[in-house]
């Protein structure tokens, strides 16, 4: 394993390898676990995390002296579509089963990206995700910069948003 690259708050969110680790993990997880194909769009840097959908999986991450939040946001239609593709069950609305699914996908996406980045010498720690359905507000302390990556699903543009927010 190579020496841990020193993370830089100004550059890490535009680091190609850093972004690709998350893109690769998002696509891989959805393909293998959920049997759906996602197409990544163009990443954007936003001044703060924005609410994108109706159900969001969050996981807090620490690496070196930095603190992050990874979030995966789905519109209700997209989350219901993924659940139906996986289990063949049509849901009329979001429920606990779908929240559970988004939590597990968030867990797998983080685990996959963590493995890829730790092979490069990063030191991301284990973490457990939480899922929020409906509205939420965020409060930032410190840097509060977000890398947002949209993904197309089943012909729907920007159906899923992945946000990586640097909190400290």
């Amino acid at each position, binding site marked *: 394993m190579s020496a841990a690259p020193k993370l830089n708050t100004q550059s890490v969110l535009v680091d190609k390898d850093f972004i690709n680790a998350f893109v690769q993990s998002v696509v*891989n*997880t959805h*393909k*293998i*676990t959920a049997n759906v194909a996602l197409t990544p769009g163009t990443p954007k840097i936003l001044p703060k995390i924005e609410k994108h959908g109706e159900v969001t999986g969050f996981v807090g991450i620490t690496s070196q002296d930095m603190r992050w939040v990874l979030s995966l946001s789905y519109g209700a239609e997209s989350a219901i579509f993924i659940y139906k593709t*996986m*289990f063949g069950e049509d849901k009329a609305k979001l429920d606990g*089963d779908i929240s*559970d*699914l988004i*939590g*597990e996908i968030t*867990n*797998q996406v*983080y*685990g*996959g990206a*963590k*493995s890829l980045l*730790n092979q490069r010498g990063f030191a991301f720690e*284990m973490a*457990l995700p939480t899922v929020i359905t409906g509205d939420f507000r965020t409060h930032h302390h410190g840097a509060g910069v977000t890398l947002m990556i949209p993904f197309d699903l089943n012909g729907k543009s920007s159906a899923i948003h992945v946000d990586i927010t640097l909190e400290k």
Partner: protein
Amino acid sequence: MFPPNTKFLVVDDYSTMRKIVKKILVDMGYTRIEEAEDGKPALEKITQAVAANDAFGCIISDWNMPGMTGLDLLKAVRANPATSKTPMILATAEGDQSNVVEAAKAGVSDYVIKPFTPVTLTEKMKKAYARHNKQAA
């Protein structure tokens, strides 16, 4: 491979993963499948099954769970003479080499990294069964 009447315990804090693993097992023809949402209730089920003389033939557990982790469950299973030889596969989204080493030291039968396909889990189950049968022979 595990005989058709093998009793499985699937442990994961996410019902989604329990459903996925259970579906794979059912598609393979297995019917005796129980679930637990954490290491603690899993350990209770394992103890009760031994007491009822109907022990689990294979445990498939998540690693990263909020109450009792899969690794701690593995250590508890290996520490009990009645279950020390039970095949146990750990599933985790954390594919770091240090995790693999830690699980191997604790006596894991095999290790599967999420996300995984039915084919991957089947291969891991075959290896776990072969390993334990070789030990028993």
